[in-house]
């Protein structure tokens, strides 16, 4: 099986599902995907799909072309296909919010979205939140400043969701933040700190 190592941001996925591949990360060096098995499903050969579909979209500002199986979720494609493992898989049924990404600027559960449905769209993951020079986004900095996590597994989803929550104008007071962030569960129960972080980041964004 031939490996594909490309520094180009246009990725063509070979039909034989050759891996690993690499994706340029904003603010950091290219990172190589490790050939670890998927989390929930047994390793499967994508070429088993008899219905491959070509897609072209932007992920974190970079144009990407790929060929996917229709059943491949945006979540699995980001993690397994592009190696963007910042987006986490929790419940895989839309209950926990840890897979939250932005599609055309709107927060959505990547586990409830097919990759083929994102053809022609712009997707932003947690890897695309920080500035190009690596400076943390105000929401990321606020989560550090307010100690808004323990284990950290839900944090990427919390951060992406909070960025959208603030942009929507829903980060106005603790009760409103709790309601509009209720799609992101934290089993460490860092909710008081998360609410503080979101409000602090909203204040900074508003003060600029």
């Amino acid at each position, binding site marked *: 099986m031939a490996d594909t190592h490309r520094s180009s941001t246009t990725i063509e996925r070979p039909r034989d599902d050759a891996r690993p591949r690499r994706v340029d990360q904003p603010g950091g060096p290219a990172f190589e995907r490790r050939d670890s098995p998927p989390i929930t499903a047994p390793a499967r050969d994508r070429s*088993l799909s008899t219905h491959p579909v070509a897609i072209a979209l932007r992920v974190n500002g970079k144009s990407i072309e790929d060929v996917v199986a229709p*059943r491949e979720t945006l979540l699995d494609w980001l993690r397994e296909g592009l190696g963007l493992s910042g987006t986490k898989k929790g419940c895989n049924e839309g209950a926990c919010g840890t897979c939250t990404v932005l599609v055309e600027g709107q*927060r959505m559960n990547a586990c409830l979205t097919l990759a083929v449905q994102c053809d022609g769209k712009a997707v932003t993951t947690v890897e695309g939140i920080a500035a190009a020079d690596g400076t943390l986004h105000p929401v990321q900095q606020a989560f550090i400043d307010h100690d808004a996590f323990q284990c950290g597994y839900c944090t990427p989803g919390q951060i992406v969701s909070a960025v959208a929550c603030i942009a929507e104008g829903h980060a106005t007071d603790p009760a409103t933040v709790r309601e509009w962030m209720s799609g992101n569960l934290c089993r460490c129960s860092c909710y008081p700190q998360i609410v503080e972080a979101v409000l602090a980041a909203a204040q900074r964004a508003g003060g600029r």
Partner: protein
Amino acid sequence: MEDFAYARAREMAEATAALASRDTALIAGGTELLNWLRLGIAAPARLVDIEPLGLDGISASAGPDRPVLTIGARATLAAIGEHPLVRTHGAVLADACLAAASAQIRNRATLAGNVLQTTRCPYFRAESPLPWGCNKRHPGSGCAALRGVNERMAILGWTEDCVATQPSDPLVALACLDATVTLTGPDGERSLPIRTFHRTQQEAVAEGLDAATAETRLRAGEIIVSFAIATRAGERSAYVKVRERASYEYALVSAAASVRVEDGAIAAARIALGSVAQRPWRLDAAESALVGQRLDRVAIRTLVTRALGDARPLSRNGFKKAMAINAATRALLTAGGAT
């Protein structure tokens, strides 16, 4: 998830033609369908994406008297919940959409998809192969919920074959507002009252159909196009959702009310309950009896209790009858403007 093919319908005719094949399913937001595919509730050979059709408009037309609110099938719960026209002419629907799911899901989930979602019964929503009976998944296999964990199941309209409830929040508001649903299919376009779109298990049997699976009047090959609400002058509405946590949870019971008050008394009232049966449950008897009543909690509660006299709780959900009475009373008082 089984493999399937994917295509986009560029015109309505393409979508309806594709649906002629029984192993084809439509996909809009996909927030419900993807979980069906994972669990084995559905296993279509092909998905047809109706995104290119649009069908997501929200408008109010100037009718002879009052505006008619029209909402496209693909309008998202987020768009409806925050739309000024819906907030003005159908607040109960806007509130029900915002209470229906998380902000993330509301950005994808569509009104028609939400209305077509199926029960949250845990025996139904399990991964194939099921280790228990579920007539809705496998007709003839029995209903494990009937004498099992049935706290959240129906208290009205059920049969021994199936005790599932319909869990949609927006559907309860649509039923309260006497919305009509417009469908298009092989035999052309038709509209029917949303109140009659779903069947209880008892109604399915009465029509000679399967109790567990004949949930809606959507015919093979039909697509929901839009919902229309003829608004009524002077009515104010409210949605009450009772659930086990403050946000992002399915209802144990919900209530949608629309009330017109004149000189301190109820001049018109509409009240629908959700998550008590396999369709929204309008309290017709209470609605007529409420006219002329003051916004008095005890009086309203008495009429609502009487209207729910035919409720038949299961072994573990007797609390849902009391909860439904209280939710309906609170929705009516809130809609009426009681302080």
